[in-house]
């Protein structure tokens, strides 16, 4: 599974396409509908994607393009409140209980 920043010139989606990784892309149409729906927790969609992958026992989750600590520790909320930062925070909080260990910029399954 590949996570990271959106980038029209590649980013995590480009990495996933190029290297055969699994990635989650909400897409503009779905995003617009979610924001108009009044749903108060859109991140729940990303969270469910991560839960599905961890429960399926995917071998690793790689965060590409940036050091995860530069994202979660950024004093700039434009970075530290981004969806990718929320994904990192969620994994730091929850990946361990699914048997994953943080190694560098990746969460690796160590207890299948």
């Amino acid at each position: 599974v590949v996570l990271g920043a959106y980038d029209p010139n590649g980013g995590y989606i480009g990495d996933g396409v190029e290297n055969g990784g699994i990635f989650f892309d909400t897409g503009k149409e779905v995003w617009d509908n979610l924001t108009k729906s009044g749903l108060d927790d859109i991140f729940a969609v990303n969270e469910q994607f991560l839960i599905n992958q961890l429960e399926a026992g995917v071998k690793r989750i790689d965060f590409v393009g940036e050091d995860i600590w530069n994202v979660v520790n950024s004093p700039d909320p434009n970075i530290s409140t981004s969806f990718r930062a929320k994904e990192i925070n969620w994994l730091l909080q929850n990946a361990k209980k699914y048997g994953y260990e943080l190694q560098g910029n990746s969460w690796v399954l160590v207890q299948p």
Partner: protein
Amino acid sequence: LGVGATMKRDKLFHQAFLNELSEVIENSEFGQLMTNLNFKQILRQHKIKDGFHNLYIIGYESKQCKLGVFYEVGNVFFVALAFSLSNSWDEYKWIGLDYLISYINKEPITREIKRTPGMENIKIRLTEITEKFIPVSVQIVSLFQDGEQVSKLTELLEVYIREDTRRRYNLK
């Protein structure tokens, strides 16, 4: 609708939303605080973030201190400050007000997702921010009048955030 008409309609929609957001801020205690601190509103901007997220920015200025009120639809509403001599809002190094307040009060950093769908919740969030900001507002704004001071503050804040992250996730 053709592409041109759609773009025009979208532009009008974003302009109307910015006007509404600005009015909500100006008529709030936060707006009053901005006046008391000698800030002037100088920017109303819509941007696209991360491909398709609508980001609205209401910008204030007091000498070299820039203050932005940011609303990313479907994600967050927050206030950030920057020091700059430049007029280009895209170049600023923003520092979150929530982080600054936590640092000054030596409190854990709040990282809970602030859900802000709709203007009513924006008003609630704005009230929360104002209540926390008022006691330390003069101190914070005075820090942002000097570039060197802001550089030192940024370094200290980065250490504080790293320590907070370590504690929060029990990291070595």
